[in-house]
Each structure stands twice: as C-alpha cells, then as structure tokens.
C-alpha cells in the first residue's frame, strides 16, 4: 500500500507555474517568521548605514534634498542586495546544497522557481526599504514634493520588473559557476552602488558614464524617482522622466525575455556538461 494518496488533480500550465511560485516563496516567508534575527541585521543595521551617509552630507554642508537622495537610494540598495544574494548567487548555493538537481528533475519551471525566490525575498526587502524610507524620512525630516504619483508607481514597478529580470538572467549564468559565484556577487556591490548613483545624482558622473550605468535598471529607476519626489530632482536628473520610463520598459522586456531564453539554454548546457551537480568546493 502506498504511503501517499494518489494525485487526483495534477496541475500544469499556468497553474503549475503559480503553485511553484507560491511553493518557493513559502519557505522564505515562513523562514523569516521563525528566525527573526534578520529584523535586526537586515532592517535595523542597514538603516544605521544609510544614516552614516546622511551625516556625511550634513558634515560637508550639502543641500537638504541630498539627504533625501541618500534615504531613497539606501532603500533601493535593499532590492539590489536581494537580487544579488537571494536570487543570483542563491542558485549556486542551491547547487552546493543539492537542491538544484531536485528543481531540475521536478516538473516545475525554473522561471517560476526564480520568481518564487524573488517574491519570497521581496517580503523582507520591502520591509527593509519601507523601514529605511519611513524612519529615515522621519528622523532626517526629509520633505517630498511628489509631482506625479502615477508616474512614480510606474517607475518603481518597471524598475522592479527590469531589476528582477536582470536577477533571473544573472541567476542562469550563476548556474554554470562554482565558488567564484560568491565572489562575483560580492564584487557587484560597491561598484554598482557607485555607478548607479545610490547616494548621489548619477548625472554628476558625466553623460557617457551615466548612460553606460543605465544598463542597471536601478540607475534610471532611482534617477526618475528622485526627479518625481524631490523639488530639486528635475534639475539634477540625468534624462527626462518620460525617456527614463521608455528605457525602463525596454530593459524590462529585454531582461525578462533574455532570462527566459538564457535560463533554458544554460540549463541545457549545464545538463550536457554535467555541471548541475558538480561540487568543486
């Protein structure tokens, strides 16, 4: 007699995709409830780090809007960290743990698994971003002058789609990597904070440097958001908000589509070369 009841209703298509997303995001959300130390390390301490940059601006007598730039930039770093550590390099970790092979042999689509990671991770990330915005704005008396609420929502949503699309794309590349994955993810922190203008207007890097940095969705997303929520934002913006929205739409389409194809291609390649279960330590 079988231990398990027979499966009466097998899900497929979009239902399987959706259930996979829920299934992969579930342990993340529940894990965070069980291990609450992340609240201190992932929400409170990064808030202090953002405050340090605020006080640098205060120490050198920067205009008050720059304080707001740091608060918004600090909140957005949370999303980059999430993409980097909880999506891209997570697949490497899953490979090391032996879970990756289980993902591959299951009927669940890898895109859905990655999306599940993103959705689950977003829970903590949103909390961290909201905490930085709320507490930072309150403590440092940041004043906002939102010029278009709808454009703001559009910019944020598009930035997230493009960013997580990029995360899925890089995750597929990380499928092929071994120990270097961890180091490469580590390398993509400060340099990305620098080129995407997390703590200063990206326009100050010069046109071509800012244009090159626009490949990272955070660059234009952050620039557009600052233009939309701060009085001095438009004068310090890199491109017009409308142009940045169009570029973000293009980036979203390119990254999500590329992620889909790249994931399928690299998965095939990794299977062929036997690298899905390799453990070079």
């Amino acid at each position, binding site marked *: 007699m079988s231990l398990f009841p027979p499966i009466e209703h097998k899900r497929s298509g979009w239902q399987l995709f959706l259930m996979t997303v829920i299934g992969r995001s579930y*342990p*993340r959300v*529940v*894990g*965070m409830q069980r*291990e609450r*130390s*992340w609240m201190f*390390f*992932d929400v*409170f*301490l*990064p808030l*202090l*780090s953002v*405050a*340090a*940059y605020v*006080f*640098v*601006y*205060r*120490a*050198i*007598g*920067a*205009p008050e809007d*720059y304080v707001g730039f740091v608060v918004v930039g600090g909140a957005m770093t949370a999303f980059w*960290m*999430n993409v980097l*550590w*909880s999506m891209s390099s*997570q697949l490497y*970790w*899953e490979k*090391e*743990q032996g*879970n990756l092979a289980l993902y591959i042999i299951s009927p669940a689509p890898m895109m859905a698994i990655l999306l599940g990671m993103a959705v*689950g*991770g977003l829970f903590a990330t949103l909390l961290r971003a909201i905490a930085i915005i709320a507490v930072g704005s309150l403590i440092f008396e940041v004043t906002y002058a939102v010029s278009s609420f709808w454009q703001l929502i559009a910019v944020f949503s598009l930035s997230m789609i493009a960013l997580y699309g990029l995360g899925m794309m890089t995750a597929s590349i990380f499928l092929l990597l*071994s*120990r*270097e994955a961890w*180091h490469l993810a*580590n*390398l993509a*922190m*400060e*340099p990305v*904070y*620098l080129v995407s203008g*997390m*703590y*200063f*207007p990206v326009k*100050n*890097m010069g046109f071509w440097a800012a244009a090159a940095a626009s490949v990272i969705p955070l660059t234009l997303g952050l620039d557009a958001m600052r233009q939309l929520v701060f009085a001095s934002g438009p004068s310090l913006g890199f491109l017009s908000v409308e142009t940045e929205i169009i570029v973000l739409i293009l980036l979203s389409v390119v990254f999500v589509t590329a992620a889909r194809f790249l994931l399928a291609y690299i998965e095939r390649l990794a299977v062929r070369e036997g690298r899905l279960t390799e453990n070079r*330590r």
Partner: protein
Amino acid sequence: MRKSVNLRSFLTASWLGWQIESNWTDPFLFATYSIIKPVAGAAILVLMYSIVTQGNFASPVFAYLYLGNAFYQYVPAVLTGVSWTIIDDREHYRTLKYIYTAPVNIPFYLFGRAVAKFIVGTFSVVITIAAGVLFLNVPLDWSRVDWPLFLIALFLGILMLALGGLILAGITLMTARHSYYIGDVVAGGLFLFTGAIFPLEVLPAWLRPVGYLLPITYWLELIRRSLVGAVAEAFPTFTSLSNADLLIILLISSLVFGVASIFIFRYCDHQARERGLIDQTTNY
C-alpha cells in the same frame, strides 16, 4: 611551540583561509577583484564630497573622511573573516562538526580563518590610500608619520576587531544563514557611530555617547593622528586627550571587549551545542 594547540589551530586555519579566499581564480583576476571593490567604495564618498564642495580636496574634512573610510575597511574584513567562517564551515563545506571534534581551539581557528580577509583588507587599504595620495591630494607625508604609534594602534585595533568578530561568530552559531555577511552589516551599522567619515560632533548629542563607548572610535582617531596629525587636530572631538590617553582608552576598552567576547562566545557555543545547532543547515 609546534605542539601548542592554539598556535597550530591558528596557523593551519590561516593557510586554509588563504586557500579558500584566493584559489577560486587566477592571481590577476584575484588582484583585480581585490582592487575594484575598495576603490569603488572610496569613490562613492569622493564623488559625494566632490559634488557638494566642487572638488575642494584640500580641506581637512576630506582627508578626515578619506583616511577614516580607508582604514574602516579593516572593520568589515576582520568582523566578516571571523564570523562568516561559522556559516562557511557549517553550511557550505559542512565541516564545522568535524572541526569541533578535532583537537582544535575554536576561537584560534576562527582568528586564523580571518587572516586571509585581513591580508586582502590590507591590500585594499594600501590601494585606497595610494589612490588618495596620488590623485586626490590627501596630505600624507611619509617622513612625518608617527610609525610606532601607527603600528601599536593598528595591532591593538586588529586584535579588538578580531575579538568583536568572535562575538558575531557566537551569535552566528545560534542564528540561521541569512542572505548577507553579518560582519559587513554590523560594520555598516557601526559606521555611523565611530566617527569614521565625519567627526562625532555632527551626530546629535544623544547619539554621541554610543561612539565614545566603541573602541573603534579611538582606534581610528589614533590612526589619523599617527598619519596626519594636523588633520586630526582640526577637529575638536578628542583634542583634550593626548595620544597616550587615547592608547590607554583603546587598550582598556579592547580588554573589556575581549573579556566580554570570550564569555559571549562561550555562552553561544554552549547554547548551540545544547540545541544541536552545530551542524544545522538553513536554506530558505
């Protein structure tokens, strides 16, 4: 000496740590990797400063924040070096239980594993300072550096940071693997209070005592005084204290920190054994 468990644990772990840290790629890529990260970190501050002050790099404020930021790179490097070893060995390599059963002194083993990150951190500090002196007019005159003070302060500071890492290692023994380096996050948080990139006077009065309680604050002040005394004197935070006073404070606070770290680590270690957490894996 060769029979000393502590020394053997330390030396073997140092060699192991260096292999783990460096042999994932070729030396050229490793050197590039070691340069890009610190230079980018320093460049963020340089750009922030330059945008607001129109590139007034001659101001003592710039030298203050640049040198503070350069040496602060030791803080995440050493804190992470010691504490991340727990996650690395427990969940990545799954060897922590074997290390616990081997004739190894765990705190010395953890210190040893941090040596590689300390070496890479030193490389980063040197690169950052060299870039500052060569391209940004950081007023560092090698002939006027107080080398004895610098070396004593550096040694005490690294020791104090390693002990701080031990506290985090203890906490890590009892917590899950999160998606970040606990040492980096704690160092990021302490960045605010230690006067690394701005004088403590910039902080609200109610926050300053936190900075005065942290040994890192005195360590950074001593490092600045030994390298560029004139810059350090331009800020009023510790003008009433002589170098000897600061050294004594650093020594005493490091001692207190050290004793506390040993007790905290022992407590966490005991708790982790009691709860069966030494070989746990957390993968959510």
